[in-house]
């Protein structure tokens, strides 16, 4: 399969989905069922890899692209991932023009509060998956407290956590 066709097929999937993994049924239908260029185990591996890598879970299309077409396929997957985001430009332009109005500011104030609730809900499945031991719970609690109480940049907290994981592995206690 050419990288161009792979891009179009993955773009079709990302364009008609509204969150990370919701494009998966379309990707499976196109690449596993119709074209037969990807196996189910490769698709599962792509999802697992995206969960273990930095960035959005929707990045699994990059791994899918790599499995199908090597580095060129991976780049096709990345392009399919970022292309729909360009639609945010006209939408933001439209929304930004309204934010000066008092009622629009009131709406956005309520949206900010609701977005906090949504982030809290999104934390639940990640916490259930990620906090499988006491040590990992301690890391999560310590990260929360440090970030809430200080202005420390998140990258240092992630680096400290990863260093703790390496130290644990050094002492033979994989987290």
């Amino acid at each position, binding site marked *: 399969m050419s990288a161009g066709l792979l891009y179009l097929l993955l773009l079709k999937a990302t364009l008609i989905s509204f969150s990370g993994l919701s494009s998966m049924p379309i990707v499976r239908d196109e690449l596993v069922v119709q074209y037969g260029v990807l196996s189910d185990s490769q698709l599962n591996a792509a999802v697992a890899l995206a969960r273990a890598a930095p960035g959005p879970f929707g990045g699994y299309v990059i791994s899918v692209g790599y499995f199908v077409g090597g580095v060129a396929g991976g780049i096709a997957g990345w392009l399919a991932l970022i292309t729909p985001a360009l639609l945010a430009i006209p939408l*933001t332009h439209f929304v930004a023009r309204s934010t000066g109005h008092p009622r629009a500011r009131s709406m956005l104030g309520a*949206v900010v509060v609701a977005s906090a609730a949504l982030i809290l809900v999104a934390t639940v499945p990640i916490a259930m998956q990620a906090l499988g031991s006491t040590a990992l719970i301690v890391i999560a609690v310590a990260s929360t407290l440090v970030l809430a109480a200080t202005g420390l940049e998140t990258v240092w907290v992630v680096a400290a956590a990863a260093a703790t994981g390496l130290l644990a592995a050094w002492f033979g206690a994989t987290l």
Partner: protein
Amino acid sequence: MRGKLSIAGLARVFLRNGTFTFGGGDATTAALQRELVANHGWLSEHEFGACYTVSRVTPGTNLLAFCTAVGWTLLGFRGAMSALLLASIPGAAVLIVMTAFYGAATRNPWLMSAIHAALAAAVGIMLAAVWTLLRGPLRRRPARTVVVAAPALVLSLYGLLSPLEVLALAAGFGLLAPERDAA
């Protein structure tokens, strides 16, 4: 008050968070909220709300739409493109390398231990973002904040409404019951 903003500074923020934040789009959004709103003051709470809403109604990956919206809000087209590319390229490169060495990567206890710890930190990043987002509204308008947050939490947690519907409901509340000091 908005802190000093430059394309290089904005690029550094997206590059850093795109490269080092594990736990998916919500964790990265939370990390960016912390840097852009709380630490640098480049983005106001209302602008964050606008970008977050745009990211939810844009097809595709919410995080990348959020980055594009933030970049556009702060520095126009070059800001949008810088944010989109720098938030996505490092993670994509890491993912391609990990895919190429899939078997070896998942069998390496050192790598997996570090990734598991970074994922635990992502939980902390998200919880801290919730706190920084709610801290101001809770101080200024506690009753109103609870009236919006509690139903949003319950409706989303139990899957009664999609995130987009929750945001629409909150926006409707803000429209029908305007804040006294929203002007």
